[in-house]
Structures are given as structure tokens and as C-alpha cells.
């Protein structure tokens, strides 16, 4: 292959520029293909999902060995495989995952990790939360979400700590409690683990660069409503709140705007590559809520985070899982205000309509269906990619990827190859 004869440094630059030019809504030499993945590489490498989450060094190797031969234009980071060990150390209750040390969190080895929804903040705690959000999050929410941090429920009143004696007596007493010792041990173990974890992710990023591949997506941020709905009030709770506590719900959502901006940027700074921040959206999709509800509860918080990221010179990369055909006007409005500063990754959304509405302003990524990559033929995949490129190619601003989570874990390798090769074949703007 001619491509692989080039030096990795040259290839890196070419690929980086191809992707950046595309995001900037200009035509590069070719439509980039940047698939997202979760467990596809580790499955191909013969690892169980448990092994992938507990042996990240091997996972990194699997990513490199399975994905780089495809000659795609950028590789995904390791952050979509959550470290099982870290979740064990903190006794996470908000997820279930394969191989968890505690039975209550354990799924079978071949299953991916999944969220456990619940009311980690109760409706009757709203008022208390607004009076003292730090206190309620520390003493109530965190102990419910993480078993190893239950001791925080006894954290002394902050007001007591302001007097010198409070610090001299109250804090050491808190610190001497057995539950607090468990917190200390867990956090120390988590810190030690994270040092190893970041060295693995950094090595992964460096290896990629040496091989000529940029890293796509650096940090992660969420829509504030999703933070509330996934991890605090639960979907049921958050949706009942729309009726019973609408003002409180909005106020709670707003609390998470700044936090999501900071979290996204902070993680991104650790690995300064292609500056797109991954924003997987959950409840915004068609069918979850009405337009009015979307406009009142979801969209304002989300756009505040997106604007915050843009101000920090990052590109919010929304993963619009499911269909967003009823939300296109909102996406268009934002894109028109922020030309070349936003990326929309679509799953079951009509690409032609998206291209028509805001193709000149926002980069579109997607959307080869998971069912096709898993069960289709290479020819069907090629046809789908060809058609998508015909629809979206003009003027730049289009990246080929799978629909749901990119390449599904169970995808057929020949179909994945067909997706990439079809992009090379039909995506050329100029030789």
C-alpha cells in the first residue's frame, strides 16, 4: 500500500490536518474515517470484557494491533473502557460491570458495563441541597453512589470547622472513625491506581503518535440534565420532577454546568491531541421528551456546557445516540452560531436532512448502522458508505463512523474493513 510507505510523522500530520480541516468545514484531500469503539478491538484480540476492563495494558495493545492496520485517520482513546479495578476500589454502586469484586455489582465476564439508575438524590432532599449543595453531595449522594465512601455520611458540619477547636478536635475524631479509614484506604489505592492508569493511557497516546495516528476525543463532558437524570434523580425521578418539582429540577441542572465544563477541559489537558470533547447524550433523543420539555429542561444546560468548552478552545463532539430527527432545528441553531466549532455524531438521524440544515456549519459524523456492521455483508456496508458520502461530502464537514457507539463490539472484521476501504474509495476530494 502506498500510504504505509510514508513516514509516520508525515502520516500523523496528514491525518491530523485531514480531520481538522473537515471539522473546520473545508474540503481536505479525502473524507476522514474515524470510528469510535468500545470492546471491538479487545473482542477481536480474544479478550473477555472483564479482561479488557482489568488489564488495560493489554486493552491498549489490542486497540493498537486491531485498529492501526485499518489505516483509519485517528484512533479513539482508551477512556471508553472503564477501569474495573478503580470501580472495585471505590465500590461503585452506580454501575454494574463484568468481574466486579462485589457480587452486587458483578455481571458475567462477556458483558459490557452498564449504568444502574437510581434516586441517589431524593426528591425530598432538594431544599436541603440548595441550602448546602456541598454538604448534601458529600454526606448523602456520594455515600449512596460509592460503597467505599460511605463514611462521608458522618462528615462534620462545616460550620463547626470554622472555629479552631473544631478542626483540632472534630476533624481528627472524624478521621479516627473506622469508616473514614476505609475512605482513606480507598482513595489512596485509587490514587496509586490512577498513576498506573495514566501511564498506560499516555503510553497508548505516544505509541499512536509514533505510528502516525492522532488521538480523537480527549475529554468527556455530559449534558447537565443527563448528570441529574443518570446519576442523581434517576430517569423516573427526573421526569416526575418535570411535573412535581420543575423549578428545583432546573436549578439542580444548572449546578452542573460549570462542573462539566471544568471536568471536560481538565481531562482533555492530560492528553492534548485532537481537541474534541466527547459528549454522549442520553435523554435528549427523540421520543424521550417533548419539544417543550427539551427546550425547558435539556437544551439550555447542554448549550451552556458546549459554549463553555468552545470558549476554552475545545470542540464539543456530541454523540447523538438514537434519533435526533425532531431536534435538528436546535442543533442547526447552535451550529450556525458556532461555525466549525462543533461536531455532531449521528446514529439514527437522517444525514441528508442534517447536511441540508447545518452541513455548512457543523461537522457531521456517522452513521453506518450497527446491524449492518454486525450482520450485513461487506457489499451492503460499502453501498451505505458510498451513499452517505454522496449525500454529505460536498464542502467538507463529514466524517465516516458507525452509528451506535461506532464499531459495535460484535462487528464482523470484514464489514469494518469494508467501511474504511469504501471511505478511501469514494471519499476522495482531490488526489
Amino acid at each position, binding site marked *: 500500500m502506498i500510504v504505509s510507505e510514508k513516514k509516520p510523522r508525515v502520516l500523523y500530520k496528514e491525518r491530523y490536518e485531514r480531520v481538522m480541516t473537515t471539522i473546520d468545514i473545508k474540503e481536505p484531500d479525502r473524507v476522514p474515517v474515524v470510528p469510535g469503539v468500545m470492546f471491538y478491538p479487545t473482542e477481536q484480540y480474544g479478550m473477555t470484557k472483564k479482561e479488557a476492563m482489568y488489564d488495560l495494558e493489554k486493552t491498549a495493545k489490542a486497540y493498537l494491533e486491531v485498529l492501526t492496520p485499518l489505516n483509519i485517520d485517528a484512533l479513539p482513546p482508551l477512556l471508553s473502557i472503564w477501569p474495573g479495578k478503580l470501580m472495585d476500589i471505590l465500590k461503585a454502586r452506580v454501575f454494574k460491570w463484568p468481574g466486579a469484586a462485589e457480587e452486587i455489582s458483578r455481571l458475567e465476564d462477556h*458483558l459490557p458495563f452498564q449504568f444502574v439508575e437510581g434516586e441517589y438524590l431524593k426528591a425530598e432532599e432538594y431544599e436541603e441541597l440548595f441550602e448546602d449543595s456541598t454538604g448534601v453531595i458529600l454526606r448523602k449522594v456520594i455515600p449512596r453512589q460509592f460503597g467505599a465512601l460511605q463514611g462521608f455520611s458522618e462528615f462534620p458540619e462545616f460550620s463547626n470547622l470554622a472555629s479552631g477547636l473544631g478542626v483540632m478536635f472534630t476533624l481528627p475524631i472524624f478521621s479516627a472513625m473506622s469508616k473514614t479509614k476505609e475512605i482513606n484506604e480507598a482513595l489512596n489505592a485509587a490514587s496509586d491506581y490512577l498513576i498506573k492508569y495514566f501511564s498506560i493511557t499516555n503510553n497508548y497516546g505516544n505509541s499512536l503518535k509514533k505510528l502516525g495516528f492522532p488521538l480523537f476525543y480527549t475529554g468527556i463532558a455530559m449534558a447537565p440534565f443527563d448528570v441529574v437524570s443518570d446519576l442523581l434523580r434517576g430517569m423516573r425521578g427526573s421526569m416526575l420532577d*418535570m411535573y412535581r418539582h420543575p423549578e428545583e429540577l432546573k436549578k439542580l441542572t444548572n449546578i452542573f454546568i460549570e462542573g462539566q465544563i471544568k471536568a471536560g477541559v481538565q481531562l482533555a489537558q492530560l492528553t492534548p491531541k485532537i481537541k474534541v470533547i466527547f459528549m454522549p447524550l442520553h435523554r435528549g433523543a427523540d421520543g424521550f421528551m417533548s419539544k417543550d420539555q427539551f427546550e425547558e429542561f435539556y437544551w439550555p444546560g447542554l448549550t451552556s456546557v458546549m459554549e463553555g468548552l468552545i470558549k476554552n478552545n475545545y470542540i464539543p463532539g456530541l454523540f447523538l445516540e438514537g434519533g435526533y430527527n425532531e431536534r435538528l432545528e436546535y442543533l442547526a441553531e447552535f451550529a450556525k452560531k458556532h461555525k466549525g466549532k462543533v461536531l455532531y455524531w449521528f446514529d439514527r438521524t437522517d444525514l441528508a436532512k442534517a447536511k441540508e440544515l447545518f452541513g455548512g456549519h457543523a461537522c457531521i459524523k456517522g452513521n453506518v448502522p450497527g446491524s449492518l456492521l*454486525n450482520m450485513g455483508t461487506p457489499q451492503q456496508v460499502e453501498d451505505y458508505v458510498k451513499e452517505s458520502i454522496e449525500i454529505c461530502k460536498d464542502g467538507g464537514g463529514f466524517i465516516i463512523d458507525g452509528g451506535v457507539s461506532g464499531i459495535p463490539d460484535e462487528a464482523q472484521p470484514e464489514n469494518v474493513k469494508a467501511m474504511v476501504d469504501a471511505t478511501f474509495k469514494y471519499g476522495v476530494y482531490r488526489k
Partner: protein
Amino acid sequence: MSNFIDEIVELNENKVIEMLKFKLDNNEDPLAIMEEIKEAMKGIGERFEKKEYFLPDLIMSGEILRQLFEMLSPKLKETGASEKKKGKVLLGTVAGDIHDIGKDVVKFMLDANGFDVLDLGVDVSADKFVDSMKDYKPQVLALSGFLTLAFDSMKEIIQKIKDAGLRKSIKIMIGGGTVDERIVEYVGADAYGESAVDAVNLVKEWV
């Protein structure tokens, strides 16, 4: 006094509960009240079909109906009446998948349309589906899944149903986040539904 049915459909929680209390205090016929509630459920289902109602509204209506049934059921038991359902549907999220949103919406809509639904919950194994089919004897099996791994779980479940000699006696529909019409043949189902409304239409067609 405003219309009880309309107030339920409008999801005016406090008002509706107050109205039911009044009705019960005035010894209104519990069966007649039940009919009104059923009528309201139909109205809510229609709004969902027309895309006027979405998940928050369905969840809220579920919450209101739960409270109404709690208040009404002691009186209903006194009458000793039992209601006839239109048909039986067995429902569950398939093995390996713990997502329940889509499944719950389908359950609500089938309930609202007068079908008897047995919900096996999430992460349901092939064996459990087969056993429940033997006990419950549904006419329709509804398999839900959000993750792509659900394709293979559905396939396995339907295979086990075939192995148990039960395939011919049942219609099978599939649905959920990543499922589309391409999956129907692969897993050996009869049909795919894009939405809960499709699910209701399929059951109506089959039963």
C-alpha cells in the same frame, strides 16, 4: 365539577386524587370509576401515539394511576368482579442487557390498550422465557434490547423456544435502541417495532 377522565388525561395529579376521594366518599360504583380510569388510560395512550405525550408524561401518568388503583382496589375487591383482557403478551429485556426504558413504555401502552402483560424484567435468560411461556401461555412474545449484544441473546432465546417446540404457538416481536428490521431475520422473529405504538399495532394484528 370538571371531568374526572379529562383531569387524568391532563395529568393533574392532586386534582385527580381529590376527585377520586370525593367519588369514593360518595359511594360511587367502583366498577364505573374503573371504566372511567380505563377510558383515561386510552386517552393518554392516544396522546402518546400522536406524539403529544412522551416519557415524562407516561411516567407521571403511571404514578397517578398507581395511586388511583391503590385507592380503588379495596372497593373493587368488594365487588368481586374480574375484567376480561384482550390477549396475553410476555415481555422482557433479553439476557445480558439491563436497560428497561423501552420495555416499560411498551408495557404501559399494551396495558392502556387492554392487553394482559407479564413483564419478566431485565437480563432475562432464554430458559426463563421458555418456562414463562409454558406457565403463562401468551399469544405474543415481546423481546426488548438496547445493546448490540441483544441480537445474539434474542437469537438464542428464539432458538430455545424452537427447541422446546413452542415456536409455532407464538408470535414474536423485537424492538429497542439498536434493533432494526435487519435483525428480524437474523434472530428468527416475526416482526420489528420502531416504537411502542408499533408494538401495540402488531399485537392487535396478531391477537
